[in-house]
């Protein structure tokens, strides 16, 4: 019964000062809005990375060069440790279905008057299976193309669209760093996100190494194990083999890094998680600012209503009744601001999703968190002014001018 009076009196007070109430809420609106939007973007990034990695299959191992900081110190050009010889040796291991060596580099593309900078990846025939790529048109790069060092290219969907529009690229001549390549195929769209294959141009690995970049090393070796169960064994065997081939002593660390898809997923989640936490905490600071705004207004309100507090005490309000009344008011402001902020955050996330290449997913916990934190901010910053009101001496409050 007293609770309805508390609610009504909060409403009266807030409604009688609409503009002030709205301005006070603004801090909370912006704060929660930012938190929800950031969490939505972070979660969206995580989800898109996860689907991509999962789509490649659980039996895929990825080997990348890694600078070793063992007893020999940092090697010069430490990321040149993987070679085609390594890839060939790995393909003979038991349980290995296919090995796809790659090397990637950035190059200038030119078709007629259109220019574009893109990632050019040298591959062998195994890439299609290893990365679960499908052709939209034309043919893929084969091992024969690799052996013959053919100057042919297969385009990712985005590259094809940007350079050719709706026209078919098949059979055209594409300049890659000034070297002419014949386009023989286009891969189907994989979806947006980090390092999407849609943004790449694929050429035979030997052409990439000898003709385009003059390099012998690889940037990645993908191993497809025969089954998910076999992949743990393959991983261990691959590590042993590469250590042997790279002549690493027992006290030296690996100069490469073998990861299963699950491990990749964990790493990526860590990265996006850290990123989200960082941005989220920046956004959370604005919640504190919002809380200070509420505290300020509540102090003003307590002062303005000193006489009212005295009257309420004279007719029988206990100190706790007064405390509750002002605390409730503070929580209403912060929670209402929080709720509006959640709406704003949703809107911002949806807008970003429709503009950019991001997919945003606002997770349920973000809503609960935003509203919970808003309520907590109201309590934390409202309790001081409310206590000040409750501690007033009734006689002093009644004499207040």
């Amino acid at each position, binding site marked *: 019964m007293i609770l309805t009076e508390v609610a009504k009196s909060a409403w009266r007070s807030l409604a009688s000062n609409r503009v002030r109430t709205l301005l006070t809420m603004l801090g909370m609106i912006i704060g929660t809005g930012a938190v929800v939007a950031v969490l939505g973007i972070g979660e969206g990034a995580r989800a898109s990375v996860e689907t991509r990695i999962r789509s490649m299959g659980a039996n895929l191992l990825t080997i990348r060069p890694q600078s070793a900081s063992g007893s020999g110190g940092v090697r010069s050009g430490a990321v040149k440790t993987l070679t085609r010889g390594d890839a060939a040796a790995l393909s003979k291991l038991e349980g290995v279905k296919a090995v796809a060596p790659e090397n990637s580099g950035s190059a200038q593309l030119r078709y007629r008057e259109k220019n574009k900078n893109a990632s050019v990846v040298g591959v062998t025939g195994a890439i299609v299976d290893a990365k679960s790529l499908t052709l939209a048109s034309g043919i893929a790069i084969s091992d024969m193309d690799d052996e013959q060092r053919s100057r042919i290219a297969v385009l990712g969907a985005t590259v094809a669209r940007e350079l050719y529009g709706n026209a078919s690229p098949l059979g055209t001549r594409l300049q890659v760093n000034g070297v002419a390549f014949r386009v023989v195929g286009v891969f189907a769209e994989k979806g947006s996100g980090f390092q999407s294959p849609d943004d790449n141009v694929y050429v035979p690995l030997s052409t990439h190494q000898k003709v385009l970049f003059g390099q012998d090393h690889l940037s990645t070796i993908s191993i497809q194990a025969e089954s998910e169960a076999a992949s743990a064994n393959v991983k261990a065997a691959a590590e042993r083999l590469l250590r042997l081939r790279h002549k690493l002593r027992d006290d030296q660390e690996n100069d490469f890094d073998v990861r299963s898809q699950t491990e990749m997923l964990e790493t990526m989640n860590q990265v996006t998680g850290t990123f989200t936490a960082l941005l989220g905490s920046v956004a959370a600071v604005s919640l504190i600012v919002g809380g200070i705004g509420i505290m300020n207004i509540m102090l003003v309100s307590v002062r303005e209503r000193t006489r009212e507090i005295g009257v309420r005490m*004279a*007719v029988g309000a206990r100190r706790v009744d007064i405390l509750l009344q002002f605390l409730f008011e503070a929580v209403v402001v912060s929670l209402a601001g929080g709720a509006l902020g959640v709406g704003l955050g949703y809107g911002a996330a949806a807008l970003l999703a429709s503009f950019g290449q991001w997919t945003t997913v606002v997770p349920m916990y973000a809503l609960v968190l935003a509203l919970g934190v808003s309520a907590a901010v109201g309590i934390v910053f409202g309790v001081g002014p409310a206590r000040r009101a409750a501690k007033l001496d009734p006689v002093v409050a009644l004499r207040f001018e």
Partner: protein
Amino acid sequence: MTTPTLFVDKLEKVYEAGSADLAVRAVDGISFTAQKGESLGVIGPSGCGKSTLLNILGCLDRPTAGTYRLDGRDVQDLDDDDLAAIRNKHIGFVFQSFNLLPRMTALENVELPLLYGSVKSSRKLAAEALARVGLADRSKHQPTELSGGQKQRVAIARALVTRPSMLLCDEPTGALDSKTGRDVLDLLLSINAEGTTLVVVTHDLSVARSLRRVIQMRDGRIVADGPAAEVVSAFIASEARAS
């Protein structure tokens, strides 16, 4: 003998202002009793401690020394929540400046003490109290939409809605013209006639004269206590001598 409604013995209220010789003895050793149903006026020059005494009687303030028993119950040792409960159930206040809460209707103002007392069917009781002071038709009006006399009637309805044993009024007619003041006084007297003890602090000697008994104060002390007509006449005579 029945327990008096008010029992006050050597009551003191001293405001410490810095050093001891600057202390203000607003109430300086007051003793009196009042039986149930009494109508008591308190007169005296400005600053003599009338409001301070009334605030102590109303449990809004605590004495610095002395005994105060309300309906036989020692009040000075009670904690804040008990005092709040006493103000809620046993005492009704009427102020010179009405002290109605803004943005609340007359009915809501009258209902407020019942809400703090967690009384059931508070709406109905509040409406009855408003009808008692003759303002049933103004229940939806806010204080800004009422005349001074009407505001004071609403305040009286708020004071009597919990059926307190005592009404304490600090210059209830001070802000009203004489005709309206007379109506408000008649209302208070009729409530007193139904058995509620009435204490009225006033500067208006005609108001004091309508009560049964009057206490005259000076510098925090009682200088006269007796039937209204006698005390007021003596007061007028002494004023005349002084000038």
